[in-house]
């Protein structure tokens, strides 16, 4: 997503993310696009953690898309990893601008059923946001790095 559109998109995503976190009681929620550009987050305190999770989730999403195509199962709906104490939920959301990806990390206080239940509403809410109608994906390879970095700057305060 272009740097020029980030202000509007990041601001528009803040409230829906908080609502989703409150409803599902997930510990961490991260929204990225397929390039790994960060559009919103809740629960992370360090930039480098976000960078790592964002890039790995973008890779996981790309792998899931490729696998879905390869196996003829069309679109992938979500990936769930049930760890011993923490669980991971990754799912794509279609918006008018581009596909974005939710990464949610949760523990015993939530469940994959609860996350799935509220994820559907969350996806609908995001798809209807005005901010995505006017936003455009990064089109120029030379701007890619800067746009990626700008996403992080928008969701974190300068001293974090």
């Amino acid at each position, binding site marked *: 997503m272009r740097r020029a559109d980030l202000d509007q998109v990041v601001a528009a995503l803040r409230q829906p993310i908080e609502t989703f976190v409150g409803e599902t009681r997930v510990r961490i929620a991260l929204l990225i696009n397929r390039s790994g550009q960060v559009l919103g987050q809740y629960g992370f305190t360090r930039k480098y953690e976000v960078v790592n999770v964002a890039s790995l989730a973008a890779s996981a999403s790309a792998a899931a898309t490729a696998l879905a195509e390869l196996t003829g199962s069309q679109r992938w709906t979500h990936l769930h990893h*049930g760890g011993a104490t923490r669980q991971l939920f990754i799912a794509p959301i279609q918006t008018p601008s581009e596909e974005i990806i939710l990464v949610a990390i949760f523990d*015993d*206080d939530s*469940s*994959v*059923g609860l996350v*799935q*239940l509220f994820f559907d509403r969350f996806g609908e809410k995001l798809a209807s946001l005005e901010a995505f109608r006017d936003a455009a994906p990064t089109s120029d390879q030379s701007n890619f790095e800067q746009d990626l970095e700008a996403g992080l700057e928008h969701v974190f305060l300068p001293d974090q």
Partner: protein
Amino acid sequence: MKKLFEDMLDRLSRVPGVRGAMIVDAQAGVPIVEEMAEGVAGGAVAAMAASLVKRSAKAATTAKFGELRAIQLEAAAGHLIIASHRDVVAVAVTRVDAQLGLVRVEMRNVLEALKR
């Protein structure tokens, strides 16, 4: 085993006033076996019933009331009856005029089968 649960849920869902019944994985909040009437969102019932059980069980332990056994949620248009055993819960969604005594008996049968 699955057949046994299906038979039990079938009996439970035939009790007058019952709109659906299911066995839920309490940790994951997803249905294991379900028998729901049309219009009842099975996924939502499983997720919310499991969440309610988790929170209530935590409260019961904190208050030193011991293990949570059952929950009966009463609302204007119906009831949610839940019987809990370890990580598995049996759930029935009923209308407000349901035969609750009979529902509880059938729920106990499901629970006994779960314990075996």
